């Protein structure tokens, strides 16, 4: 097993309680940051760590913090994005459920570095029980003077509140999250201005993912340069990967970035191989939005090198033969899964979650869903495939937020790598309309 940084203490009995967390070295990073360091020094450590945002885009966290408008006399806000709804991703839920205090201490240090006095945790509406866990943990922290006024007698004030969403994937996009927090529909805003300049209530705002903020705590304890040594050069640190689909051991794993995909998939300490001794067909490596890759291309890159679990290795070859690390939602498909049905399913998801602001996404996802449904049910036409590719091209890059791209990529990549399967559906309607779901290979 690789090195564990975030989930190091996850197996300790009662670790979600403040007392147990504290006796196991919890909140030491708050004492170190607030007691011995200046806010700029905390930020410098995060920059030195080369930590990249763990929510999906992989943007350098330190850079995001640097962009925060510090000249403005308006209050600043830190928002923690716990609106985890990307299909295949369930790592934040696991982290908050098991180690709520890790997130809180990371948020305290980050807020201190950014000069924030009010922070919010935006929890998706479906995770109702997490709201209870977080509020309990926050109350414990308040009681023990790690939140509130004059924390640790350093003259620094901070309070963290929990805000709940109500069922909308789009609110995971940072500007939609801000809109939702302001009590509006989750319609993303046009950028620029970026939230770092005009965010919540038009004030400078930083939005970070749960895992990103949790990683700030170990970064402060071990120092940024030390953290940067873990993993690979372009992908520092560890990452939580949530593995699901047709594998023997689904669950959340912390890996050191740079672990070979093959090892992650077949090692009994991680996924443990494909369920029921079947063969691997395809993998979506970073949550449903990233391109799907067939077995050959996910284990090895287009050049024939071993593919690693890291930002740079997964995206090797661009979208022609690569994908993205994304949010770390690792979905594995065995030989019996139907790619057409799966693509239709995902497109229905994006159609359902499109906020309806931009026409390409609102109309495009709807048409793609209809066409894919038609192909899946044996009523497709061969030119439908080109229409699908055309629609996906028309959505990509033409919308306010990245949901449009996220809806276009799975369709485009499925047709790119599994065109034969789509063609089979079109050419053999009498077979595909008879099978409800499952593999078509056996009928060939």
């Amino acid at each position, binding site marked *: 097993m690789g090195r564990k940084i975030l989930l190091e203490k996850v197996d300790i009995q009662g670790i979600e309680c403040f007392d147990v967390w504290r006796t196991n070295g919890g909140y030491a990073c708050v004492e170190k940051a607030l007691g011995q360091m200046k806010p700029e020094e905390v930020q410098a450590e995060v920059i030195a760590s080369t930590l990249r945002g763990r929510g999906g885009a992989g943007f350098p966290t330190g850079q995001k913090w640097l962009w925060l408008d510090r000249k403005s006399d308006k209050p600043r806000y830190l928002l923690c994005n716990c609106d985890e709804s990307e299909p295949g991703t369930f790592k934040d839920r696991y982290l908050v459920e098991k180690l709520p205090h890790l997130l809180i201490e990371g948020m305290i240090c980050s807020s201190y570095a950014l000069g924030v006095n009010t922070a919010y945790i935006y929890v998706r509406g479906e995770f109702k029980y997490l709201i209870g866990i977080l509020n309990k943990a926050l109350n414990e922290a308040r009681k023990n003077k790690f939140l509130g006024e004059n924390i640790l007698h350093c003259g620094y004030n901070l309070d963290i509140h929990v805000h709940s969403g109500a069922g909308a994937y789009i609110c995971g996009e940072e500007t939609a999250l801000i809109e*939702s927090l302001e009590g509006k529909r989750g319609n993303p805003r046009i950028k620029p201005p970026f939230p770092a300049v005009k965010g919540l209530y038009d004030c400078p705002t930083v939005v970070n993912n749960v895992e990103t903020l949790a990683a700030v705590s170990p970064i402060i304890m071990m120092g940024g340069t030390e953290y940067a040594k873990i993993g690979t050069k372009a992908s520092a640190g560890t990452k939580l990967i949530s593995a699901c689909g047709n594998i023997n051991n*689904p669950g959340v794993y912390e890996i050191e970035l740079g672990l070979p995909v093959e090892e992650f998939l077949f090692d009994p300490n991680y996924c443990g191989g494909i369920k029921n001794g079947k063969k691997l067909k395809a993998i979506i490596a970073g949550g449903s939005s990233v391109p799907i890759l067939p077995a050959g291309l996910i284990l090895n890159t287009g050049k024939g090198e071993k593919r690693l679990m890291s930002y740079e290795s997964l995206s090797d070859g661009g979208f022609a033969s690569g994908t993205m690390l994304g949010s770390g939602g690792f979905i594995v498909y065995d030989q019996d899964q139907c790619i057409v049905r799966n693509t239709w399913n995902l497109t229905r998801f994006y159609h359902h979650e499109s906020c309806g602001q931009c026409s390409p996404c609102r109309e495009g996802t709807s048409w793609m869903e209809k066409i894919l449904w038609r192909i899946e049910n044996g009523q497709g036409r061969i030119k439908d495939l080109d229409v699908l590719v055309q629609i996906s091209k028309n959505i990509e890059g033409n919308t306010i937020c990245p949901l449009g791209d996220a809806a276009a990529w799975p369709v485009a990549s499925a047709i790119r790598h599994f065109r034969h399967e789509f063609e089979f559906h079109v050419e053999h309607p009498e077979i595909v309309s008879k099978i409800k779901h499952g593999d078509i290979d056996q009928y060939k």
Partner: protein
Amino acid sequence: MPKNELIMHRGNYINHRLRVKTQEEINLSAEILKKIHKIIQRYPQGKQKSALLPVLHLVQEEFGSHLSVNLMDKVAEILSIQAIEVYEVASFYSQFNLDKPGKYVLEVCHTAPCAICGGDDIVDYLKEKLQIEVGETSADGLFTLKTVECLGACGYAPVMQVDTEFIENLDTEKIDQLIETLKKQTEKPHELRWAERFF
């Protein structure tokens, strides 16, 4: 064909046909009002509109799991915002019900990671067992069957949510058992009232 026509899924107050206002008077208990004011306190002065989502969760739970026009108007009054600002939010988010659902809402995930692990079969089984289609309520008014998009529990697929609880690694046996237990409960147990407890 899929039921959804060429309209956006995220409703607005026009294509959702806002239900009519009735004579019913909404009286919020002192306890609820206190809770609402506690929520408002979390946001800066003058930004009480931010409390809208949590407050809607709270009152929806209190008033039969759905938001009537009268109730939404009352919320608008408390938060000093226009009624339309409440309607447009209530029609956007999928967790707010504009129509009254059954006593228990069975929300089955049908997105890809669950679907490839048997989620579609679970939906079919529930349809058969309760003798209803997706979106309908059983004749005894106890169960509403809903399919929802990813619940964020893909590693424990197939998954269903009933109130706060996630029921994971579903199979037909687990479903039979759950339906039996829920049928026997006469009152909704207090611990299911999550908004009241958690906010």
